[in-house]
């Protein structure tokens, strides 16, 4: 229920906005899929951010975004790629670039990484195209 409410809100904001760059249908689909994964974590009390990061990723590339996190919270970063068949991965790095240990979920074109930062500050989330021809992807995150 809550997941659909969020999807509806996201669509509403999307419609009301003039985006810096208009989202493609593939990105909208990837976003829905990413929200679908995040929705599963909401059953454990995770709140989904009403924000997302979409783009295009090519073979053997990864996309990197900076986030600012708080010690004491738990986070899940959920991503989905629109193109099938493909396999993506999500990984997290600290502010020095060192990869942090995360719990992982991988299901082909969907993936997620979860962890609890010991220190507050900046982290980097990487969406990696492990297999496939590439295409649009979208990342959302949730916290509790």
């Amino acid at each position, binding site marked *: 229920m809550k997941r659909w409410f969020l999807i509806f809100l996201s669509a509403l*904001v999307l419609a009301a906005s003039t985006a810096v760059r208009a989202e493609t249908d593939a990105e909208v689909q990837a976003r829905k899929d990413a929200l679908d994964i995040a929705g599963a974590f909401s059953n454990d009390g995770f709140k989904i951010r009403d924000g997302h990061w979409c783009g295009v990723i090519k073979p053997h590339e990864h996309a990197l975004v900076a986030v600012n996190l708080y010690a004491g919270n738990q986070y899940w970063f959920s991503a989905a790629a629109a193109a099938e068949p493909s396999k993506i991965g999500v990984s997290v790095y600290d*502010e020095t670039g060192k990869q942090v240990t995360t719990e992982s979920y991988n299901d082909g074109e969907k993936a997620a990484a979860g962890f609890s930062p010991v220190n507050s500050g900046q982290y980097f989330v990487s969406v990696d195209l492990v297999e496939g021809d590439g295409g649009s992807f979208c990342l959302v995150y949730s916290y509790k």
Partner: protein
Amino acid sequence: MLTLGTVVFAASGATDTGRLPADQLAKAARSDSISIPTPGELFAALGKSEKTNWSGQYRGPMPVTYSNRAQIALNLGGLIADGFIAVEAKDSQQVKNIGSDIIKLAKALGVSEHLLGRGKSINEFAENSEWDTLQEELEATQNEVKASMQSHADQDLVILVTLGGWIRGTQVVTAAIMQNYDERSAKVLRQPALVHFMQSKINEVSPELRQEPLVKDVSEQLNGIEKLISFPAGKTPAADDVRKVNEAVGKVMIKIESKEMPK
């Protein structure tokens, strides 16, 4: 909310030891909608560490009759943070009061059309004590205000809404930690990259807006705040560090709330 260009790197950029080089970190995408946490995220981290007296963090009714658009944007962000505080306090009436003020301030910026529905939703969720949904609604309201600003060529004001929310959120969190200091809570204050990012966004706004006395003042004080919250990784801010941050953001809040504009 809005998307930015995607920064992609060759996958081989990550070394075998699982470390990304500094040049890749520097080029990572950063966006308002995902790189800047909401006040709700900050309060969630604080709420785990201690029993916070959220209602003790309320402030008195604030004017909703500002005429300066930059000041309205900063106060709107602060007001949205107040909404998150009221949700943490599970205070229906306070949520409704703040929701009403948010709509009034948004109206003053000419972004109220889509928001009238939001005001009604906030009231309904508050009456039904749907606290989780209210958090989502507040965040969605904030994002809708920003989206509306962008579509009205007011994109320069967006960062001021974000900044206003962060300053008010930090004021509340530091005040709460000062009342009941513990190391786990104090750790949430370390956010140098976040303040640096907001400062860089302010530097990108139009020269006219940047030269407005209030914006100039807030921007200058933000430099000092960035230094105050730049604790080394692993170092827990001491009680005195928390007090200094509280004083610094408190001074900025006074300027933001003041009906007399700085000259």
